[in-house]
């Protein structure tokens, strides 16, 4: 099998564990809330848990994570729509099957990376767009791996 064009040779072990440093969390949603009835201690008090932190859910490696915006229709069958926000992690290795941000001839594109036989393709998710075969002569560079897509349901908010 051909080696993925997207793997960097980084198999040297680190002497330190890489920790994510920044955990800014302005956005915290209470996971459990109970009304307090005067006089009675809430029976739920013992079960109070931590808050759900959207930031932490969406971004596991802040220094390598970037938000980008989708423009175009080629990925609609993968539910990536025009105007959606994508959470992109540059620290991940792009692998077959993943949706990635790539740079083709200096232009950004979002597509699924697919391995067929020993050839990699940038595969759209819309029948009207053809897949792009990745050849050695081509000017292609992986930029990051898409880990979340944020699609706003209520548009008029």
């Amino acid at each position, binding site marked *: 099998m051909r080696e993925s064009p997207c793997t960097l040779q980084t198999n040297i072990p680190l002497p330190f564990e890489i920790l994510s440093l920044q955990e800014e969390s*302005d956005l915290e949603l209470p996971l459990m809330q109970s009304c307090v009835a005067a006089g009675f201690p809430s029976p739920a008090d013992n079960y109070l848990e931590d808050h759900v932190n959207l930031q932490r859910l969406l971004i596991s490696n802040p220094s*390598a994570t*970037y*938000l980008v915006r989708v423009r175009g229709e080629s990925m609609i069958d993968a539910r990536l729509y025009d105007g959606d926000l994508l959470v992109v992690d540059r620290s991940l290795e792009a692998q077959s099957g993943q949706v990635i941000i790539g*740079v083709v001839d*200096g*232009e950004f*594109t*979002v597509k699924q990376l697919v391995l067929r036989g020993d050839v990699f393709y940038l595969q759209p998710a819309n029948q009207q767009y053809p897949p792009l075969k990745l050849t050695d002569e081509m000017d292609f*560079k992986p930029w990051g791996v898409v880990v979340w897509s944020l699609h706003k349901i209520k548009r008029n908010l």
Partner: protein
Amino acid sequence: MKKLFALVDCNNFYASCERVFKPKLEGKPIVVLSNNDGCIIARSAEAKALGIPMGQPEFMTRELVKQHHVKVFSSNYALYGDMSARVMQILATFSPGIEVYSIDEAFLDLSNLLSQDLQQHAMKLCQTVVKWTGIPVSVGIAPSKTLAKLANRMTKKSGEKQAVAILQDTKEIEDILARTKVGDVWGIGKRNAHKLAGFGIHTALDLAQASDAFVKKHLTVVGLRTAKELRGEPCIELEQTPDSKQNICTSRSFGNPTTNLEHIQEATAYYATLCAAKLRRQQSCAKVLTVYLQAYPFKNKPAYYNSKTIMLPVATNSTLELIKYANMALKPLYKKGYRYKKSGVIVSEICPQANAQLPLLDTIDRSKHQRLMQAVDSINSTWGRDTVTTAAQGVYDQEKRPNPWEMKSMYRSERYTTHLNELLCVQA
């Protein structure tokens, strides 16, 4: 214990930041302009090769720029600052000790890595930074900070681009020192180099081999530390906790020279706002405020510069108070008939917020001010700088009523990582 330091430097940092989000510019010449699009403050390797000099005024380079299709950018500090913070966070995972030395440089303490394979560790660092951020870095490693700086220079000098240079071997260090001009040593500078030349000291090696007494006499203890560092004795420790700033200055050239007091007042109010926000960020207050105003020579009038300093009744970090006093200081500086180019606000005698003394008779409800400022800071941190501003800064609209004093930044790229409506767009 033997010490080991690394100096990590981002290659052509500003140009590299622009390239991360515009990969089309890979291999193309890029220059970045100073505030107000005045002169060139950063160049890509390609622009350096074209012979575009650092610091040259923008208008003098227009021909070269056109001829070679050089891409010109206004400085985009929102982007550079964010990318710098990312790089520093990554570096911090490679060493327990880090000193952020400038926006694009950091010292790391690698002393505990003596037994590890240094080369591999440093290579891994470079690969991680470039993969996670797209910013290429180079690393110089040596037994002292001054030598690490030199080692880092080696990575740039060497014909074949290597990202890592390690200076450990005594013989090798001597060789390099003999080939380095003393003026290129970290902390020596042109004036000292000139002075040293008078004593026959031309290379870094000459300085390293000079007697302690001689160096101390002519370069003080600071120079002696440098000489010892060149000998491989570490004397300059990592500064890991940045000092709170002793004074804060915000000054900018106006987008266009102006004769209008109102515009100058608005701009000055804005600079006071920025000073106040910085004070609050480091949880301190200022006791003294200085405003200065500067004009070009115009018609028969010479250039003009004047400043006024006010002792504040109470140390403060309230935007509203600082604007009030800045305006008080500014008014007497203004004289009719000048074309003003720049004003600035400096706050000094800075003390921790908790130590700010209250006067007996205070007419200001300070806790109310404080709550208001907290609300403003929190809105501006959520929705972006300048979402809530004071009316004293004037109200402008990019399309309908453009701001006359705002700095020019005609060629600024998007603030990709800090503004939701300027994110990178990718084609689906």
